Structure formats: structure tokens, C-alpha cells
């Protein structure tokens, strides 16, 4: 059309179209924030893996998530070390702890990660500064996430008890929060003393493996898995294990399904409001559209006007939604809410939002049927 009918009508009757723009904006906001939260929360389940170096993870066969780890046979380390590609094997003690600050208060369960405190240790390199790692060498010292301190009821220097064993909070860091619960870091030895069997039980739940430079990781993993089938362990590549863990939380806990369900509800709501608004607008201008039809302007051109309006609504709603989501996610990140904004999922959300408005446009085109030019002659 040589006259920008769609755009001019949108601007002139913005009050009429506002509900649709707001609906699209809210859909965009909800989808984007929800996606970032889901990725953040479920991605945090793999924090143990993603915050650490190492090429391979060794764990109990069939382990679905780090929290569900089981103790490996004591000879596992030997079998892994025997492989020619293996450069370093680092034990990782993952145990449940019973946290108690004062004897007159209740206790609650949390997770203790016992890690190698040597300067070239692989575990948690990304969140644990070298100086803090060194401080963990002091017996019975622990490091907690700043965001968990209130929950744990401690400040720096406090001496709470884990499984009845007194420890000292020597430092804090950020980025340890996971979906499963509260994590604290300590040395392998302290964790050994904390665990129910004490230091005498040398078994651990995981080993993290660094391969030699230039070693073929796929071959090494295959060889080690062959050993594992005989000796009771399984080997994953780092990325593979992170995916296994995230997938477990997303799909096997039902949480992912809930999120997907919510996305469908959000999309449907957005689509219904948008299409109803557009239909109302079309019906409101039915005599004008009918007059154009009488003058010989085809249904196709009128349809394009409605679709163009839907596109404008989608674009402006998306813009508003993105701005809202950015603000919400900024607030979230300031409050240590785990979020992860990734390009592809965000793009998918944006496309879904545009899809919602375009679908609504197509649905609203039906309202043009009311624009029958013969109805103008009464």
C-alpha cells in the first residue's frame, strides 16, 4: 500500500493496540527470564564440573548427577593411573554433611566438597582463588558461598560443626550455589575427617583426570571405560558429564516439563490476547475495510495490513520485553540468583515471541470477513 495504513492506525489508535503490545512484551519478558533462570539454575547443577579443570570425570557407573554419586572401589585410582594418556588423577570427595552452628539449634543437610588443595589442583579453579585454596590446607578450614552465609548462620571466623566435627570458616567466594543445596569447600583431608567413616575410609565418589598434552581424549576415555566395566567405574568427558547432569535436572526431575508447560501457557496467553486485540481492531474498522473492498482493493492487501500490524505489535512488544527482561535479569544477578543468558536460547525466545504475534495476526485476519462491502448497502 502506498499509504502506511497499518502503521498510522497503530500510532493513531495506540490505546486500542496497547493490550496486545503489553501481552507480547510480557510473553517475551517471561520467556526470556524463565529461560535464563532455567539455564542458570539447571546449569548450576553442573557447577562442580564447569568450575573445574580436567579432561575426564570418573564416577560410579550410571551416575546421573553429581549429588547422586556413590563411593568408588578403592583400587579405581590405580586402574586410571595405569593408562598412558593420563597425566594427573585428582580425587574428589563428595559427601553429605550435617550442619550445626549451635547445639541448641537444629541441624540441616548440606554438601561437602573435599578437594586437592595443591596449587595446581583441578577442582573449582574457576571460583576458588589460589590464596583461598592455600588457606584450605589448614586443617578443619572451610570456605562457603557468600550467598549461603545467612542460611548457614555464620560469619567469617565462626566455628560451626559438620557431622559433629568442628570446622572454621576461613573464607568466602561466589558461584557455588546449586539447585541441590548448600555447598562448602574443604580439603580432601578435612572432608575425610568429616565423613562418617573417618580418614580410614579412603574411597571417594569421583576422580578428575587431566590427560597428557596431545593425548587423544576419545581413545583414552574408551580405554578407561573398558577398564571401568571390569572394575566398577565409568568415565565421562568433562562436557559429556556436565550435559548428563544438566539433563538429569531438566528432564528427569520433572522440573523441565514444568518449565516447558509454563512456556506453552505464556505463549498461548500472549497469542490469545494479541489475536483478540487485533480482531477487535479489525472489527472496529470493518466498514472502512469494506469500503476499500468495494473500491476494488483486494482481500490480500487488507490481509497484509492486519499481518503488518501484528508484526509491528510483535516487534515493539519484543523490544519492551527485552528491556524488561534485561532489567529483571540485572536485578537477579545482583541478588545472586543463578541465571545464564545464552545467545541461542534467547534468540529462540525472541523468534517464539515474533511467532506468537504473527500467528495472532493470521488468526485476526478472519475478522476481515465481517468487512463485507455488500453490508454497507442497507
Amino acid at each position, binding site marked *: *500500500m*502506498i*499509504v502506511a*495504513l497499518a502503521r*498510522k*492506525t497503530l*500510532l*493513531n*489508535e495506540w490505546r486500542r493496540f496497547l493490550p496486545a503490545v503489553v501481552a507480547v512484551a510480557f510473553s517475551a519478558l517471561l520467556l526470556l527470564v524463565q529461560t535464563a533462570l532455567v539455564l542458570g539454575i539447571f546449569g548450576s547443577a553442573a557447577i562442580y564440573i564447569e568450575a573445574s579443570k580436567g579432561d575426564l570425570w570418573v564416577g560410579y557407573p550410571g551416575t546421573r548427577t553429581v549429588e547422586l554419586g556413590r563411593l568408588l572401589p578403592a583400587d579405581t585410582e590405580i586402574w586410571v593411573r595405569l593408562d598412558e594418556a593420563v597425566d594427573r588423577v585428582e580425587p574428589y570427595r563428595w559427601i553429605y554433611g550435617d550442619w550445626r552452628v549451635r547445639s541448641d539449634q537444629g541441624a540441616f543437610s548440606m554438601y561437602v566438597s573435599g578437594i586437592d588443595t595443591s596449587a595446581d589442583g583441578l577442582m573449582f579453579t574457576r571460583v576458588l582463588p589460589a590464596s583461598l585454596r592455600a588457606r584450605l590446607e589448614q586443617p578443619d578450614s572451610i570456605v562457603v558461598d557468600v550467598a549461603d552465609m545467612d542460611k548457614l548462620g555464620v560469619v567469617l571466623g565462626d566455628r560451626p560443626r559438620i557431622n559433629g566435627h568442628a570446622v572454621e570458616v576461613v573464607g568466602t567466594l561466589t558461584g557455588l550455589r546449586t539447585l541441590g543445596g548448600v555447598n562448602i569447600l574443604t580439603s580432601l583431608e578435612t572432608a575425610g575427617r568429616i565423613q562418617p567413616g573417618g580418614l580410614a575410609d579412603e574411597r571417594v565418589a569421583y576422580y578428575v583426570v587431566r590427560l597428557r598434552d596431545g593425548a587423544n581424549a576419545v581413545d583414552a576415555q574408551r580405554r578407561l571405560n573398558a577398564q571401568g566395566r571390569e572394575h566398577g567405574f565409568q568415565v565421562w568427558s568433562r562436557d559429556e558429564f556436565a550435559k548428563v547432569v544438566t539433563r538429569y535436572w531438566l528432564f528427569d526431575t520433572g522440573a523441565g516439563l514444568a518449565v516447558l508447560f509454563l512456556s506453552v501457557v505464556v505463549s498461548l496467553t500472549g497469542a490469545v490476547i494479541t489475536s483478540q486485540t487485533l480482531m477487535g481492531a479489525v472489527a472496529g*474498522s470493518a*466498514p*472502512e475495510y*469494506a*469500503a*476499500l*473492498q*468495494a*473500491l*476494488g*482493493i*483486494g482481500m490480500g*492487501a487488507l490481509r497484509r495490513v492486519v499481518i503488518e500490524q501484528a508484526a509491528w505489535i510483535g516487534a515493539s512488544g519484543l523490544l519492551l520485553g527485552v528491556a524488561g527482561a534485561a532489567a529483571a535479569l540485572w536485578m537477579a544477578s545482583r541478588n545472586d540468583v543463578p541465571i545464564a543468558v545464552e545467545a541461542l536460547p534467547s534468540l529462540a525466545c525472541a523468534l517464539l515471541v515474533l511467532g506468537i504475534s504473527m500467528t495472532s495476526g493470521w488468526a485476526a485476519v478472519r475478522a476481515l470477513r465481517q468487512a463485507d*462491502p*455488500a453490508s*454497507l*448497502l*442497507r
Partner: protein
Amino acid sequence: MNEPQAVQPGQVVLSGRGLAKSFRSGRIDTPILRGLSLEVLAGELTLVSGPSGCGKSTLLALLSGLSRPDGGQVEALGQSLWSLDEQSLERFRLQHTGFVFQGFNLFAALDAVEQVMLPLGALGLSRTAARERAMTALDEVGLAPRAKLRPAEMSGGEKQRVAIARALAKNPQLLFADEPTSALDAANGQMVIDLLHRLARTHRAAVLCVSHDPRVVGHADRVLHMEDGRLLDDTRSGATKGPP
């Protein structure tokens, strides 16, 4: 599809033969037109008058290609209108017909010149050419100085003149007007009917106007009186009576 030839004043450009139409409501068929025939000449303002419900608007819908007759034929500019398919009919309306309705049916968001430009784009005119032609049409209805106003800023008479300019800008050979004055006061109604009359002369268009407004009668070149779906009377302003 053969192109219609140039039209001479007095030439029959629109004719209906044996037109019949009835409306079904539930099980009851109510006949609106009962085998009506008429011819409309170019360069004239032909008025169809009659009491409301006599079928005059239905007749207009059938003759203008907006509503298909149950029986009979319409020949417009040498073409049998109702033998055209939907698309050709739309094309025919685009190229040869203009409409003026009782309600002005203008878009609230557009100013006068844009209202008039709107159908011109479909004719393949460029934006500049369309604007030029729209301004000419607005000038012809005396609204060039008001070209930048939106419907909300115009009086009823001005709005109807914009609607006339919109119909006129396409240079149609057939101009249909349905009760164009009934929403207007006396002065504005007068102006609109004068305008339609003048356009029939200057554009050599056949203007077929349906109205029960007695003020219009005096301005028509020819008045067809309708009652109960039939033509009762055919009067020329020169007082010569034609065949009914």
C-alpha cells in the same frame, strides 16, 4: 476479458435485466427484487427513490458487483458482470467503479489526502502520482485546503466530500452512491448532491444514486421510483417519461 470502450454521454453503460433477489431468513424467503430491468446512461445522475425496504440498496449492490443476483443479468461497460470470477470482478470494481456510502467509512488515522490515495496504490500509481491525483480530486470537491485534516477534524459534509473524492480519484465510469445525503444537514446534503450531479457531467460518468431524500429529486437528471421490488416510474427532469 475485453476492455470497455470510451464512453459517450447518453450511452447505456449499465443495464440490468430480469434482476431477482430474495433474502432467506430461517425458512422464509422474502423477495426483494422481482424481475427488475433498467438501463443507466453515462453523463447523468440517475436517482433511484422509494420508501425504505423497497429494495433500492439491493438493486445498487447487484448493479455494482457487490452482491450476486438470484436471477437476471447485469451488463456493465459491455461486460456481463456476474459471469466474471471473483478476482476479475474485483479488478473491474477497481478500474471502473466508485462508491459513496451513507457512512463515510474513512480511516481515523489518515488525513484526507491519504484517504483518497489509498485505492490509487492498488491501481499501480506511484506515491507521487497518487498524491497528485488525490489533490486534484480533493480540489474538485473543494477540499484542497483541508487535505491535511483527519476525519475527527472535519464536519460530516466534508467527510462525505472526502469519500466522494476517494471514489472520484480513480476516474470511474460508474459511480454508485447509497443514501449519500441522509447523514447530512440540508446545506451539506445540497452540496453533496450538486457535486454528484456536476461529476456526472464533467467526468461523463454514470452516477447511480439511491436515496429516499426528497431534496435530491430536484437535482437528478432522471428519477426511477421503486416500490416493492419493482420500478413504478421513470421520470426525466425534462418531464419526458421513459418506459418503466
